[in-house]
């Protein structure tokens, strides 16, 4: 069986078994007096294992196993910890602002994780299919070069075309001025750029032969810029979710520590 499929089936079976086991244990023992402590500690243990994956990533020179294995554990444990969280909450809404913040932090960390998982499984394939592989950090410089080329073509001293100059100023200058169509690219929509190219093609009706050649060149530049925007949008999405997931994880850990202090400080009244 292929490795990734085997990983998926094994992980899924383990998750299903763990879920069934946890629900069965929950049904059987949730009346125990210290049950909330038990599920709390289990949840904390799960969160601890999830968090140390980031530590593993920061210590690549230590022989701590493959990051791929760690990520698999992180993903399936992430799903299971979400169930533990619901069990710990006893499948009810949290009380008070502190619990609500803590719960929201958990939801956002988990949610961003799920989004990240979705992105990391879907977007790379789309990038590969589109082609024109480019390093993210080089995109601004490449865009700037395209902008300069387009500007020279449309507005340079040798341009001498009012039609093209006007269109460039009104429509293309904005397009070349910076990253565009982030959401369109993420949604795999080409509506904006197709519209722009159609408008550019319309100019041919008023263009001389020399101007038509320039229009073709400008259209090629628009396509190149669109390709760079596409790569930027998808590569940014592949990075952005981590800027939500990781800082919120630290917030969640701080609130979890406070939660434990509060629970033990006022344990006489806790549940």
């Amino acid at each position, binding site marked *: 069986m*292929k*490795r*990734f499929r085997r990983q998926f089936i094994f992980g899924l079976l383990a998750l299903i078994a763990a879920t069934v086991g946890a629900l069965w244990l929950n049904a059987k023992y949730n009346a125990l007096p210290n049950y909330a402590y038990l599920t709390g500690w289990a949840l904390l243990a799960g969160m601890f294992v999830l968090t140390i994956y980031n530590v593993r*990533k*920061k*210590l*690549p*020179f*230590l*022989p*701590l*196993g*493959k*990051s*791929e294995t*760690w*990520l698999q554990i992180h993903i399936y444990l992430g799903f299971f910890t979400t169930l533990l969280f619901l069990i710990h909450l006893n499948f009810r809404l949290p009380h008070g602002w502190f619990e609500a913040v803590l719960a929201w932090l958990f939801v956002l960390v988990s949610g961003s994780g799920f989004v990240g998982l979705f*992105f*990391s499984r879907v*977007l*790379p*394939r789309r*990038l*590969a299919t589109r082609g024109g*592989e480019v*390093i*993210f950090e080089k995109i601004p410089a490449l865009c700037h070069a395209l902008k300069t080329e387009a500007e020279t073509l449309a507005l340079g001293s040798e341009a001498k075309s009012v039609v093209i100059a006007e269109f460039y100023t009104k429509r293309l200058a904005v397009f070349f001025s910076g990253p565009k169509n982030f959401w369109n690219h993420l949604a795999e929509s080409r509506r904006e750029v197709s519209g722009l190219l159609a408008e550019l093609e319309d100019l041919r009706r008023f263009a001389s032969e020399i101007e038509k050649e320039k229009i073709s060149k400008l259209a090629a530049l628009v396509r190149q810029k669109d390709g760079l925007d596409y790569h930027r949008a998808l*590569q940014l999405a*592949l*990075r952005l979710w981590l800027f939500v997931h990781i800082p919120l994880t630290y917030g969640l850990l701080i609130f979890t520590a406070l939660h434990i202090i509060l629970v033990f400080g006022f344990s006489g009244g806790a549940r």
Partner: protein
Amino acid sequence: MPAAPTILERPQRWDAAFDANMTDADVERLLATAPFSGMAAEKFPKRTPLREILRNDARILKFRKGEIIMRQGDYGTSAFLILQGAARVVLKPDLPPSLLGRQATNKKGVFRTLAQLWNRSRPPEMLPRTLLGQSSGVSARQNEKETRVFLQDVPRILDQHRTAQMIAGEFFGEIAALSRMARTSTIFADSDDAELLEIRWQGLRDLMKYDDALRTHINKIYRERALASYLRATPLFKNLSKEQLDRVAEAVEFSTFGDYDWSGEYKRLAQSGSVRPEKEPVIVGEGDYPNGIVLLRAGFARVSQKFGGGERTLNYIGAGQIFGLNEIAHNWRNKESPVNFQFSLRAIGYTHLLVVPTRVMEEIVLPSLLKNELPPLVEKTEDDFDSAAPQTRAREKVGAEILEFLTENRFFNGTASMVIDLDRCTRCDDCVRACASTHDNNPRFLRHGPSAGRLMIANACMHCADPVCMIGCPTGAIHRESFAGQVVINPTTCIGCKSCFTNCPYDAIRMVEARDERGEFLMDQEMKSIAKATKCDLCVENHGGPACERACPHGALERMNLNNLDALSKWLKL
């Protein structure tokens, strides 16, 4: 109007002589010295006369006692003839790596591994003081042309190692030069007046071609020193007795194809986009009578088949692989319906090969094989290349596009190429960060490179089977960590000459300016910055293998031997 083309003289073989300073007097002197004095100049063609070979493909070098002429494990393109004085070859035990300008690789201990936690704030490309001095036991002296490394304590070496002296008239280094194998011994000058003639391989090849005595002499050495052990290790001959093997060795013919200095030429062709199979030297033509099996001893060759007006690649084969066995085994069993070679074999870059004649195969080798060890019969079906030879199924395994991509770019040379599956790579750069963390904050590769479909080969050292980067390193700084092991650079003995950087056809070596602990550039007396060559060392000092591979969260990066398409095919189908 198109610009007028630049007109210049067509480049010729001897436009760049090995040594531009060779004088007529030098050449006259050589012609009066054995073995050249005994060569019949009239046997050499007008295009490559003996005199011009000596003038353009040879140079005279003077060595002082203790200066290293060649190191064990180095790759060289030339052979040496002692003209005057003496040289000494180290037999056993081998000289330690430090005496050869190398670094004994030690795995990092617990403390050095953990120390990477706080060493990451160092300035980039910082060279610790401990690495600035030359290792004890050797030193370097530099003249206007080149750097020579010399052994400081020759008497102690003579005392501790078994050595043998070689005197004027003796040849050495010719087998490694012709077969593109690593040098098997270290040789140093044994007198202050040692004068050697260094002949580059092209010249040696021509001398052998037109002088029977030299050819017989070198062939004899080759058969004695290299061939017998090689044949013994080849599975095809495993059932032969010693006498049979000797008969095979006696009948084997060897030859070289292509261009030894292929890397520079390849770079030029790759840039112009004209690396085409039709331009590669043909070793065996499709449809030729099978007069022997071809064993690749070094280099690579492309198996191709006529397709339309061109050739399509079916596979590439490397050192140790065999071509033509199917046809010869078929003809041996089916004398009434013989077949010719089903495919063409073309040299890619440089190829050194052995040919075992059909007669010897039929009389000695094929009868020794068990029935299940014989290849299947060739089925002469139109356009069915898969049934003929298992080696041509590569196209089926990885697909035509990827096979052409790997061949055109000569990536099959890599034994540890960084292969990235773009369908899974999230471009997170965890691999780059892991590499930087493992190398004092200095990443040793670029997560970018040529790609075909979902496959990308990143700009990282591929630890080539044919490491052209190692040819010409004056100090031995770039070397294999072990036999056929990782190619590593010793920063202590690297003099920043850019030889490896220029030779690498894959742009996997970078020159960096070294800094001190304060982050200031290291300067020489002329206030020029000290440059060092750097590249991926496959985390040879770290435990657990290459950090880049271990750091990839999505299993999208693998260090792979691209000469084994089974592994690639399996990985692509994951």
